[in-house]
């Protein structure tokens, strides 16, 4: 109730302030303008192409991160020696914003989809590895010992005890990875690209078309919000 009022108030003042010349609409645009820009963009036709490009970059990079990150994380959690070796460089990479590596990645992979997929992959694989690893490590020892004392093999223990017990932590990694992946795809496209949503945002920004730009920004935030909400729902279900 209150939040609806707050949103309505925000939209109303955003619409009215430029009309009263309290702020320059050139810089802020207005909700009604953004809306008509949205209609323009949907009718214009390049939206679907750009969205498809960004979406496939996102999906490819994230799928690779998932496929590589979860097994690697579980493995590092299981074998301590391996973890001691890999953990320090991994943490160094975790602390580095993946976007700082963007110029090198573009140098290696060019300005096409490959470099964006790589940025998404690097950004999201590390939180997935780190959290999967932590998930295995925080499995309660008595559970494992109990399973062992009932003659469970290492494989049984892994599949029936460690895997389910570490799933919630894996999901946290997935959620963190998702937001890094969205960030990565948009910023990488803004940095250098020929197509995609980030490319449109950058292009419209240099053309001073704030209303059209905001349509794409809203699209991205809706996408990100939808994904993280879904991930959180899944997380809650897994935790139970």
């Amino acid at each position, binding site marked *: *109730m*209150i*939040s609806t009022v707050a949103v309505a108030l925000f939209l109303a003042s955003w619409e009215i302030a430029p009309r009263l010349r309290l702020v320059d609409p050139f810089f802020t645009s207005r909700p009604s303008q953004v809306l008509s820009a949205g209609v323009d963009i949907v009718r214009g036709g390049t939206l679907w192409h750009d969205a498809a490009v960004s979406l496939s970059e996102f999906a490819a990079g994230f799928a690779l991160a998932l496929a590589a990150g979860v097994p690697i994380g579980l493995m590092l959690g299981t074998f*301590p*020696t391996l973890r*001691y*070796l*890999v*953990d*320090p*460089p991994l943490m160094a990479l975790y602390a580095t914003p993946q976007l700082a590596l963007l110029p090198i990645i573009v*140098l*290696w992979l060019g300005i096409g989809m490959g470099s964006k997929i790589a940025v998404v992959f690097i950004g999201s694989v590390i939180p997935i590895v780190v959290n999967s690893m932590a998930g295995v490590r925080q499995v309660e020892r008595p559970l494992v010992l109990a399973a062992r004392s009932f003659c469970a093999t290492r494989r049984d223990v892994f599949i029936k005890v460690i895997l389910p017990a570490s799933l919630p932590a894996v999901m946290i990694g997935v959620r963190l990875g998702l937001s890094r992946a969205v960030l990565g795809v948009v910023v990488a496209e803004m940095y250098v690209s020929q197509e995609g949503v980030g490319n449109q945002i950058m292009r419209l920004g240099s053309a001073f078309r704030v209303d059209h730009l905001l349509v794409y920004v809203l699209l991205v935030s809706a996408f990100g919000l939808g994904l993280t909400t879904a991930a959180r729902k899944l997380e809650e279900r897994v935790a139970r």
Partner: protein
Amino acid sequence: MRPLKPVLLGVVSFAVILFSWEAAVRLGWLNPFFTSQPTAIAAALAREAGSGELARSAAVSLREFIAGFGAAIIVGMLVSGDRVASLLGRVLRTMETRSGGGKRTVNEVTS
């Protein structure tokens, strides 16, 4: 198995990465144009630090970081802080009781 010294293994890990990187470039397996090499990076670090360029750039970034993050902390505390929340809650409750609404908790009202 007894866990080996984690710190030692971490150092070994970095040493192996840096050594094989440098060796691969020197043996011609990697093109330094694309990958550079640890010794070249160290030399660049010394050069940038010596010329003052590193300090200048770091100072700019650090100032931006502190200003932005400081503002975020202040605004974040103001918006979510206990005192503001309880004040807002009290205002809302008085509004509710004046308008004849039933008793409600702050959480219900603000959500």
